[in-house]
């Protein structure tokens, strides 16, 4: 499943659900955000059973991005039971995102 672009309400609802949620905070002008895009879509497919995978455009949701303490993009945050478990800024490879998810899920 392709990563869903979320607004604030969708985000708030999704992170309350049982499945952990991975969120990519990004913006259209951020070229490194585009670079992680293809790998992120692949992650969405590979982890479809264990994770909900979404994206938040910080230009469209600036207040949400501030509230979540996002100072740099791309930042990936893993949420469980409504809370942020861990985050990673500008991962350098798909394998690094894989490692981040596995470590965050084990916490």
């Amino acid at each position: 499943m392709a990563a869903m672009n979320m607004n604030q309400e969708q985000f708030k609802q999704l992170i309350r659900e049982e499945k952990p949620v991975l969120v990519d905070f990004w913006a259209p002008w951020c070229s490194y955000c585009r670079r992680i895009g293809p790998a992120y879509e692949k992650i969405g497919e590979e982890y479809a059973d264990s994770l909900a995978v979404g994206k938040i455009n910080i230009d469209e949701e600036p207040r949400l991005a501030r509230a979540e303490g996002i100072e740099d993009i791309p930042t990936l945050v893993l949420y469980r039971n409504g809370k942020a478990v861990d985050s990673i800024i500008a991962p350098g490879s798909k394998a690094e995102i894989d490692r981040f998810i596995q470590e965050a899920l084990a916490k």
Partner: protein
Amino acid sequence: MNNNHVYDMLVVGGGPGGYTAALYAARAGLDTIVLEKLSAGGQMALTEQIDNYPGFEDGIDGFSLAEKMQKQAERFGARSEYVEVLRMDLTAVPKLVETSEGIFLGKTVVLATGANPRKLGVARESELVGRGVAYCAACDGMFYKGKTVVVVGGGNSAAADALLLSRVAKKVILVHRRDTLRATKIYHEPLTQAENVEFRWNSVVSALLSGDRLTGVRLRDTVTGEESVVDCDGVFVSVGRQPATALAVGQLELDGGGYIVAGETTETSIPGVYAVGDVRTKPLRQVVTAVADGAVAVHMAEKYIAENR
């Protein structure tokens, strides 16, 4: 991916050199796979606008050009995998590349691993990345709207970064260790005419000043040795590139800068292994020279495969 399938060609790195090799290989009927850690394009994918790649009269952004190269290679049957290469055995038969997703075997290997930004090499640099220290103005420049930034370097990318930032930031201070820019002339005039760009010649960054995030830099004058402090919100490091050849150390001949020694034929010190693009010793590192390397590598690889049946 732990099977015994042997590809004709493993391409390590999905930048312009790698995907051109994949295009030529696939069109030559070679069974080819590109192993890329993140997405197509390499350094080019972070370039906002490419105006010196022929055929795009209005310029094109690097990410889109990379996607086009990937799709073009895949149209002829080349495959791509998003994997991180962990280890290579280039003299084995077949040649072996171990990745985060298993082992890949190939009759030939094209190394198109490119280069990465060189670091300043001062204390706390790594921990301040994303908190004031940046390597890509096109990526992170927008966070410094209305703020003061330092750009370190004097080459084309430093000049381009300073120009880009001058349109976003309140003030740009260009710090260079020599007394004149190495960048090509086209950058000099717009930079010197920009009202918010200041130059600090003969200067190097000796320390990063920070609390939770960067608050300034300490500069050392390379002539007098005097130190001074410049308050700033961000520092953009643009002091050149470093070839991504860590995995080739001990196997391939490298030059003093760490680049893989290979001439116009792209042949390395190991038969059947080719180095293309920025990772190779060459006088000019550009998209257009990288793609040329990709084509030449396949020409040589076809010969090698025919002779080693």
